[in-house]
């Protein structure tokens, strides 16, 4: 293999890692936002505390999504063009959810009025829920393959059928899976960061949600290896199966730490690992397609077809190798500085 053919594969893995980091980080923001109306129903102080927990970080976390999107554009322009235009309506809804989530998270603090703040909190929770569902449905559709055919006349990979084709039960289950995964993840993170009554409530909610999540997770993985074509790669290179196994083990360990050891920090850490490996399991299964087609071989959009020039990929790799570790370093630093345990002063 020469540099020219290795590069797209490297970028494909980087692309997967970026998405994985995004789900790990924004997962807790989305999860906590969904918990706010449930856990903080009776107390503005508790709702404010929950938003203070994610307040300094949601924006930095969301940039991983922007970067994942930017890398799709830069490294696989054709895939970016096909994916974003094929999934036009769901992506626009996702966009509006992200906009509402962001604006309301920041503006809720700017006016000390109980009704205003409850409207903001409601919008944040709703937009986070819809965003989680959409991300789950979208990625499940990628795993399953989109209804794509190459259209020689347009010289473009055209989406066949309509938006309802995206709502296969397997994909809907993916939406449920993401919601549950972020709910557990968010509850764990919240529990780790606060004290007192809120901590107890978050802990209770984490223990109540985890079994449901685990059930859906196992069903989803089983379905992924039947409905989606992801198993092909794993059967042809069996050692790769270590990845989905590791994913399952991490999620189980997360539960073990939660129930047996009552160690929330470690449970959260395993949850992070689980989300990252789950994303990578899907991405590795898709290789060498950035967007698999479930209609025909010719409809598959491979990394080779979609990749940018070797020069662009090389330059971006240099930038990424310097900047991404730096970003991870200062985000961890910022987290250490800012993620103090928030005492409930009431």
């Amino acid at each position, binding site marked *: 293999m020469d540099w020219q053919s290795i590069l797209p594969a490297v970028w494909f893995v980087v692309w997967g890692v970026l998405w994985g980091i995004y789900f790990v980080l924004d997962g807790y923001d989305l999860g906590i936002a969904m918990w706010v109306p449930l856990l903080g129903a009776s107390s503005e102080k508790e709702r*404010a505390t929950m938003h203070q927990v994610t307040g300094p*970080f949601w924006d*930095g976390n*969301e940039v991983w999504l922007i970067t994942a999107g930017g890398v*799709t554009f830069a490294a696989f*322009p054709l895939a970016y063009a096909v994916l974003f235009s094929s999934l036009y309506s769901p992506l626009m809804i996702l*966009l509006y959810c992200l906009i*509402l989530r962001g604006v309301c998270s920041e503006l809720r*603090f700017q006016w000390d009025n109980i009704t205003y703040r409850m409207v903001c909190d409601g919008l944040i929770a709703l937009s986070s829920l819809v965003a989680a569902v959409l991300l789950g449905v979208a990625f499940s559709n990628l795993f399953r393959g989109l209804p794509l055919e190459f259209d020689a006349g347009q010289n473009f990979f055209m989406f066949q059928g309509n938006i309802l084709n995206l709502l296969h039960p397997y994909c809907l289950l993916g939406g449920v899976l993401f919601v549950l995964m972020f709910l557990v993840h968010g509850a764990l993170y919240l529990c780790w960061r606060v004290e007192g009554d809120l901590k107890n409530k978050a802990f209770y909610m984490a223990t109540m949600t985890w079994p449901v999540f685990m059930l859906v997770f196992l069903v989803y993985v089983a379905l992924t290896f039947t409905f989606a074509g992801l198993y092909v790669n794993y059967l042809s290179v069996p050692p790769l199966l270590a990845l989905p196994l590791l994913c399952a083990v991490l999620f189980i360990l997360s539960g073990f730490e939660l129930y047996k050891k009552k160690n929330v920090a470690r449970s959260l850490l395993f949850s992070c690992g689980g989300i990252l490996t789950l994303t990578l399991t899907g991405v590795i299964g898709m290789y060498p397609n950035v967007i698999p087609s479930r209609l025909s071989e010719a409809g598959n959009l491979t990394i080779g077809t979609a990749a940018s020039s070797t020069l662009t990929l090389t330059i*971006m790799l240099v930038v990424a190798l310097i900047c991404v570790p730096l970003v991870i370093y200062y985000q961890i630093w910022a987290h250490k500085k800012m993620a103090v345990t928030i005492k409930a002063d009431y």
Partner: protein
Amino acid sequence: MDPIILSRLQFAFATIVHFFFVPLTIGLGFFIAIMETRYVRTGNEKFKQQAQFWGRIFLINFVLGVVTGIALEFQFGTNWALYSKYVGDIFGSLLAIEATLAFFLESTFIGIWAFGWNRVPKKIHLMAIWFVAFASTISALWILLANGFMQHPVGYTIQDSVARLASFTEVLTNPYGWAMYLHTVSGAFLLTGFLVMGVSAWHLFCGRNVEFFSASFRLGSSFAVIFSILIIIIGHSLGQVTAKYQESKFAAMESVWETQTEAPMHLIKIPHFTREEGNLVEAMPIPKFLSFLAGNDFQHKVTGMKDVPPENRPLVWPIFYSFRLMVGLGCIFLVVAVATFFVRGMIASFGWGLWVYILLIPLPYLALQLGWIVTELGRQPWVVFGLMRTADAGSPPVDWYQILLTLLAMIGIYGVISLTGFILMIRSALSNPQKPVEHYV
């Protein structure tokens, strides 16, 4: 309905709203950083109050800029798929680098700044706002280099009918991108200066916190005077770059139809409100001045629109009027800023004269939007100048009614969030800075 028209409307709407928040983010970040530096150096609490008062406006403005910015990255793919496919190799990589270099820095450190007054040491808090301020200018540089490629494509080869990167250095040293960058950032600082002066003038007029707002006003007036001068010098070089690389845009800006050397500039000119050639009125010429503007040389040849093939011409009149109005506003800013600079020490005693500054607040916003209208309408009918037409850049799988629905939804959502943000910003701007700021409680 034509999906291209709808996509253009949607992109224009999203960008215009986005750009209402961008310039203040760039300028006010530095303003706050300077105030907080004074606080850390002197330990004087009144500078901390300055940083906190302007900081509240900054944060509201910042978040609206961030979220409306995400829309743009999505839209290249959703609405302009063929464009994305065509330029992704170059344009996409500039966006990805922008995210990695600037967005992470900005978003991580804004969190520290907003929530960190009591959580991190003073110097780290100060560092955070400087990082945010510089990150916003880094961000501007990369996005404007990307836009520069659309205006004046360089460093590419066409391969398999898409543009491929040939020279990264050429893309990074694109004179068009740099001229736009300096012009835009100057505009951002100018706008900030006038906004700070206007808000301060209101408080001074009411006679509240006179010492505090006189101090804000002084720094605001320094921003205004420096950048109202710089923006004209840089604007002049941007005009020359335009005359050199985008003859059709330059011709539209001045509504010039005949190619000529020693071209005069007409102070009064009325173009047709159609695509008809020529002007309705041309009067009060300044001899040879347009040639000078185009090339720093009174003999410089200015290409007229009649020498641009009709299918490559932009619609002249909106570009012409936007440009005229922008330049006129720029002259007003220069006069006001320079005059103010000499009397800024006694501004508190201006009485009703302070209303000049209050009423001027919206005008830099208008001028900056007009500048972008000139830039982007003047680029038409091309999406990448000379290479790809806007009409060929859309998304084949997307139907017109999908775009119409998302456009209406966008107008609704942007309307609500902008209005809320606007009210909250005015509320912050009119609040009393002496009150302890209940930041994020």
